[in-house]
């Protein structure tokens, strides 16, 4: 994406304000990986199918390979680099990662579900995670780990309230 002129945009990335020059033809995924050096977000397909490139944009999961960088202007973007390790032990113990190529995307979707347990009133975990293809785990490790993490989160919350 060489030919066009650069434009300046601002966005909130992992809690901090960033201002950067981008090519208007690039994808959010390219900006993150190539301009900002945030290599945690992966490209598995570039067609919106696999979810390896999932990031949160204004708090909801999106495929960064389908987001023109100009549309990230003024938005809140959270990537795998912002995820708190403490959240991940249930996923680790359940075998949610094998080769790891899908994992950053899986973790972003999972983190979003963990933040919004109310989603489970209308949606099942498998439906919420269906946008993240995994070829290694058969999904049990992911779904089981996420269920355990949500339970632990709810338990912590009710302790906090109680």
């Amino acid at each position, binding site marked *: 994406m060489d030919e066009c002129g650069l434009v300046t945009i601002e966005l909130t990335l992992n809690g901090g304000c960033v201002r950067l020059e981008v090519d208007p033809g690039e994808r959010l995924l390219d900006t993150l990986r190539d301009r900002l050096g945030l290599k945690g977000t992966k490209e*598995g397909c570039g067609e919106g199918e696999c979810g390896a490139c999932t990031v949160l944009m204004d708090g909801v999961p999106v495929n960064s390979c389908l987001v023109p960088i100009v549309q990230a202007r003024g938005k809140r973007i959270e990537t795998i680099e912002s995820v708190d390790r403490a959240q991940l032990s249930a*996923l680790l113990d359940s075998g949610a990662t*094998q*080769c*790891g190529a899908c*994992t950053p995307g899986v973790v972003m979707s999972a983190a979003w579900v963990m933040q919004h347990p109310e989603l489970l009133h209308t949606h099942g975990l498998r439906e919420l995670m*269906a946008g993240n293809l995994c070829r290694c785990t058969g999904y049990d490790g992911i779904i089981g780990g996420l269920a355990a993490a949500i339970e632990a989160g709810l338990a912590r919350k009710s302790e906090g309230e109680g």
Partner: protein
Amino acid sequence: MRSSRRREGISKLTGQERYVDDLTVEGCWWGMTARSPVARGRIREIRFGRGVDWSEFVVVDHRDIPGANQVRLIELDQPVLASDRVRHVHEPVVLVAHRSRQMCRRAIREIEIVVDPEPAVLDYRIKPTPEQIQYGPDNVFKHLRIEKGDVDRALASAAHVIEGVYETGAQEHVYLEPQGMIAGEEDGVLVVRGSMQCPYYVLNALMHALGRDESHVRVVQTPTGGGFGGKEDFPSNLAVHAALLALKSGRPIKMIYDRSEDMGSTTKRHPSLVRHRSGVDSQGRLVAQDIEMTIDGGAYVTLSPVVLSRGIIHAAGPYACENVRIVGRAVLSNSVPFGAFRGFGAPQSQFANERHMDRIARTIGMDPAELRRRNLIRDGQTTSTGQVISDGTDRVEVLERALCRSGYAQKKEECVSFNAAHPYLRRGVGLAAFYHGSGFTGSGEVYLSSCVDVAGLEDGRIEIRTANTEIGQGTLTIFATIAAERLGLDESQIVIAEPDTARVPNSGPTVASRTAMVVGRLIERACDDLRRTLGLSEADTGQRLRDAIMKWWAEHPDTEPVGHARYESPPGVLWDDQTYRGDAYAAFAWATHVAEVEVDLRTFATRVVGFWAVQEVGRVINQTLARGQIQGGVVQAIGWALMEDCVWDDGAMANAQLTNYIIPTACDVPSIDVEFLENPYPHGAMGAKGIGELPMDGPAPAIVNAVVDALGVEASAIPLTPERLMELVTHG
């Protein structure tokens, strides 16, 4: 058994793991490939369009290859870059490099490869015409044969003779990380880093095509985002391509396939056609198995002979039968070469066998589980190659556990009443009993003669040096557990060396379910050897060992203490490559899987609603990892059975996109129930046998058997897509 946490787990979960595409290399250019537009023909001309300024690019074709224009594998028939002829669509012809990846994309569009077409083989099942012959006298890459007893006589006197024909389609690996390599010269040594299963395969291919010796080439595996066999043979091709561009441009070159290029141009599972003719006696005992297996090898030989070998050895299933004849052929077609894929021929042949067992059961009116119960090999009986099985595993117990866990008998009854009541849903239950040989076939391990080193480091820790790679299956964790257990150390004291051919010995490829069992065992022996080097006894572990290492370094500051081990065949394992008789594998893992399905007669879609996997795999070294292998394998096999369909159009994969090549999502599969029965194998690390490929073998036949149970139609080809099932149901 404890389950250690996956060593690199947190690094993967936090996105810290660095795969090849994540590496930034100073001054690196991008490389890309221009490919054949047709399935077969003679290259007349290569035109370079005016849309880009070619002076900005480095361009490589076959004339730039310093060594042999051959991808080194079993045979040398595949060119690195096509010179005068092409044999499949997307065959690489020209390479380009540029600073910008987008400019490379532009350049590729500007290259027109003009080919005069020649008659291509587009269906391997049809006998080729003389104009289509491209290999030997008949396009057959390999013939193999297994003979035991007298099949014709046994068939003539059998109470029932049952025939069937079974077919399986190509399957794409869809490792989530596409193929990728970085090559560059560092101080006169060509260094290639990338996503791969087998660094030494890549090293050998580079030496051969570049005409360099081992001291001038080095291969380093980067963390690999899935392989499943797709990164066994293919990475050699890409590594040579990247190297050629690097040598010509004098810069590091990065080549990363995008998904469509990866799906369109890399290997896939071999399609297969298997014919069965079996004789059974009045008690339902197998008296003869007459089997013919043909696999589609694609355009070049690659690994087809060994895939065929494993395929036919597993073709008769885990049953005792005194008269067996298996004939196998791998044939050419003008599509991408088919290559290694988890299971390596055994899923294809066991799909046919387990489907056929159900057909036998239906024909003679016996419950499918009972038919298997009667025929499963007992200790002391022999396989088709005459291998005496005497490992002490109770294979009937494996079957019974699966029946019990799944509630097989009750489920079958429930299905009948459910089906009678529901307007359009039909449920059925099916099973498959199967086995998988661990390690290389026959004398393969002896030929490989793998080596492992275990070193005592200056700080007292232990370093394990093997060429075996972590591709998601847990190599790093398992190796650490094995060494820690052997040496009485905490796993934090174990370092696993990066698979770098400059530093690690050739411990063989990471394939064939051999890593834990075979290489793990070498690690144990190398640990023992290290103790010997240090003057310790087997009883010396933990702190004593650490002390001895520190003492060694104090006394010999210039030489590190290293323990070595080289493969030795377990006693009494004998194999004859000429007659295909003897001990095909040092050990087998055994399994029975049960599937419950629901077919919607409005849409003819099949949903797997329950799945139970029981297997005996020797000792389980890590429950979490082992369960993950089974669950992941089962789901990959569900995809193969029901939805993964390579659509071919004039030899090209027409659906080379993830949106059109359909693999299961979380919503397409049930939770997979897993149970291990453990019978420690004395010659495997900690008692382990192979596990990685086993779960690919059973689910497809179990699922199709369940569909047959639900609908009563004889489905015999996979993928059993809704379209195909509709044909069967409405037209028979």
